[in-house]
């Protein structure tokens, strides 16, 4: 894949190491080749101190171009007809985008950013996976950051749906800056079933601040942001701030008040974020947002609301000892010890009852601890 002049010089500009804002200024009133030329001659009006003049050597253009070819990355410059319209209106849209997959999947579909902490609890991972899955089923593009934890779970949930909506990852690193095996697998899967975006040219270094900066891209792309789990001062709050600045609806999944991984989300709820219990709540927020956007296909509601109605579920017939053991369980996994004590039965009786309850699907064993299933 050879690059056009504009792509070639656009990629070269991105490789100069300027901030996203600076990069936009480089292209403000210039076409990419002109901007490069002006910087290289020290005559660009956005670079009066000629800080980038020495960096703009022709060798960089070749390096970037071959790195793009090697990683199969395509380049699109702000203002080009192929630049994602979803981003084009944003004041802080990236000047140059590097992408794999098909960035056109972003158009015409509702988009929800599912974000959260990398050190997620099993609860958060479960919720993120379910949300990703149900959103993909509803025809919603799941946007996330490809990080481990909540991001990966949301992507994986969406990818798990056979003919679901595509899912889009926004990297805080170059495309070839992904190193762990699980992230590589996810990146490649997203390339096949959606798109992966980055602002940093392949082969070049990223810095930590890029992760915070790329969060604005996720916020700009999303119609609704869902925060699944977030620690006190977690990185997801950057996305939330960027979303608030753009008037994007922020929603959050409530968590245990004792869980440090839910401190951030619970605080968001207190501050007025929309609570999310399941995909229904997200879809409602999306529909509200799309009222003014006839160009976007509204999400498909699942035929029956999946939400459980809480109490009143049909209980299977249980023996007396099974009932006692079942009453001793709740939704927090308890050790066998605790179940034995709460039920007041012997270990043998409890064991038999638990095996039967597990077979009936009204108890689940997790690593030697027992709980009621979470529906």
């Amino acid at each position: 894949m050879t690059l056009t002049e504009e792509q070639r010089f656009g990629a070269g500009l991105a490789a100069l190491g300027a901030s996203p804002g600076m990069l936009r200024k480089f292209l403000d009133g210039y076409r990419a080749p002109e901007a490069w030329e002006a910087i290289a001659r020290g005559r660009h009006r956005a670079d009066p101190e000629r800080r980038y003049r020495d960096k703009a050597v022709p060798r960089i253009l070749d390096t970037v171009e071959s790195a793009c070819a090697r990683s199969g990355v395509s380049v699109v410059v702000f203002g080009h007809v192929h630049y994602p319209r979803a981003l084009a209106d944003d004041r802080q849209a990236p000047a140059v985008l590097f992408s794999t997959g098909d960035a056109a999947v972003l158009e015409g579909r509702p988009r929800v950013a599912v974000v959260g902490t990398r050190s997620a609890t099993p609860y958060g991972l479960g919720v993120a996976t379910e949300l990703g899955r149900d959103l993909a089923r509803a025809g919603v593009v799941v946007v996330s950051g490809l990080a481990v934890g909540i991001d990966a779970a949301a992507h994986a949930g969406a990818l798990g749906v056979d003919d679901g909506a595509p899912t889009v990852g926004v990297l805080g690193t170059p495309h070839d800056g992904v190193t762990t095996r699980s992230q590589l697998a996810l990146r490649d899967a997203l390339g096949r079933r959606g798109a992966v975006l980055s602002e940093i040219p392949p082969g070049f270094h990223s810095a930590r601040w890029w992760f915070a900066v790329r969060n604005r891209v996720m916020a700009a792309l999303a119609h609704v942001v869902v925060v699944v789990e977030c620690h006190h001062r977690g990185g997801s709050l950057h996305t939330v701030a960027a979303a608030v600045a753009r008037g994007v609806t922020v929603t959050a999944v409530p968590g245990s008040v004792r869980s440090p991984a839910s401190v951030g989300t619970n605080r968001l709820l207190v501050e007025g974020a929309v609570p999310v219990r399941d995909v229904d709540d997200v879809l409602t927020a999306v529909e509200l947002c799309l009222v003014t956007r006839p160009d976007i296909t509204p999400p498909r509601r699942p035929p029956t609301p999946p939400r459980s109605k809480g109490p009143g579920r049909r209980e299977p017939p249980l023996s007396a000892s099974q009932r006692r053991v079942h009453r001793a369980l709740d939704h927090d996994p308890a050790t066998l010890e605790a179940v034995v004590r709460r039920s007041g039965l012997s270990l043998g009786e409890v064991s038999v009852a638990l095996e039967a309850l597990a077979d009936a699907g009204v108890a689940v064993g997790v690593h030697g601890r027992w709980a009621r299933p979470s529906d």
Partner: protein
Amino acid sequence: MLACIPSATLHGVDGRSVSVEVHVSAGLPGFTVVGLPDAAVRESRDRVRAALLSSGLGWPSRRVTVNLAPSGARKTGAGLDLPIAMGLLVAGDVLPARCVERTGFVGELGLDGSLRPVPGIASLVAAIDADHIVVPAAVSAEAALVAGERVRAASTVAEVVAALQGRSPWAETAPLRVSPPERKEPDLLDVRGQLVARRALEVAAAGGHHLLFVGPPGSGKTMLATRLPGILPDLVRDESLEVLRIHSAAGASSLGAALARRPPFRAPHHGATEVAIVGGGTSWLRPGEISLAHAGVLFLDELGEFPAPVLDALRQPLEEHVIRVRRARGAIDFPARFLLVGAMNPCPCGEGGLPGACRCSDVMRRRYLRRLSAPLLDRFDLAIALGRPDVEDLLDGPPGDSSAVVAARVRRARALAQGRGVRCNSELGFDTIDGPSTLSADAAALLERRLRSGSLSARGLHRVRRVAQTIADLDGVSGVDERHVAEALQLRAARSTLMTGAGA
């Protein structure tokens, strides 16, 4: 001018008979030791010379050659000092040859002529074929356990010579002590609550099933594990002797000679090296912690912190009850039949991914748990998740059965197992455990459901059946029914924490 003295050196925990041949001839004064001696043996020249001179026995200023036969095997340790000295005295005509006829010698010499104890004396005397064996007085009791009346004790080389010439009687052998009574094993009475963990200990002791505790810091893993030896049955005499031989060969402890009646308990720290745990060493191959735990309990706290090579090295002894140490200088089998108790946190912070408490990321949890290989985890028949005990229990909980009561149940269950021809149920072969006769219909149905759902593997099936048999034995019933199988399944449920690594 030639003398031939029977003696022995240590090879692992076994003795190897060595014939010390000393030749004294005319020629340039000199002293050569041949026959693959190690540094300690080569240095014996200086010790023997000083010891003989300070005992007034003289040193031949002639050419001395010492051969240690068989010359192909390596000789280690200072135990050959005394036989070399005796050989010199005989070959140098200080002592008539008939005095040392059919007499073996073992002992290290001090420069003042005193006899010092050597490690592994019980194994050494067992390897010497002689009518009398002279040993240092300090370890004579230990030697007498094996060689009985044949043992002669002495505390200096001068005493040995005097007694051999019949000028004075042999020293008394020190009296044998059986299991120092002052050592009190921790009692289960101290444990409050923890019904399930106590039960797991009881099942582990009765069936010889390896046990794994998974729980947060402060849940009592160590406290429980240290109480396991207290409910194991006494060692039988053969086991005691073997334990004594191993500990003596390790040079560890019982150079004062005590025959242990209670099973040993070893708890090596996770910083210990592979050699310290499995055995080996540079100068001479020594038994490691797993052999010192032979016939007793090996407790590995913070199992996940042990280096992976150490954990992998455990697999063979767990299966074969023997550890084969292979080194460039030789290969040795050390006995290592121990009951393994592992304890670990479910994740690096210890809270096990529980919402609200755990501070570990998924990646950290996985990395932590990946250290344990599946083959090692497979060896644990019992794995239980522990929680922190209730405050009420700690302050005012009902004490459970004492160790003595539990030990009695364990003894009864073991007697039933011995009726099947094994020491305990964990040693039951496939042919014995596979027989359908003892399994009730609903127990078989439960196992079948678990097999079909994939939560139980073929190997797991046998392990569950063995544990269920132990539980039935503890209940004092002959057949295994659903209760026993269900309990066996529950008592291994925490394995999945470690097999999958991930939460949810």
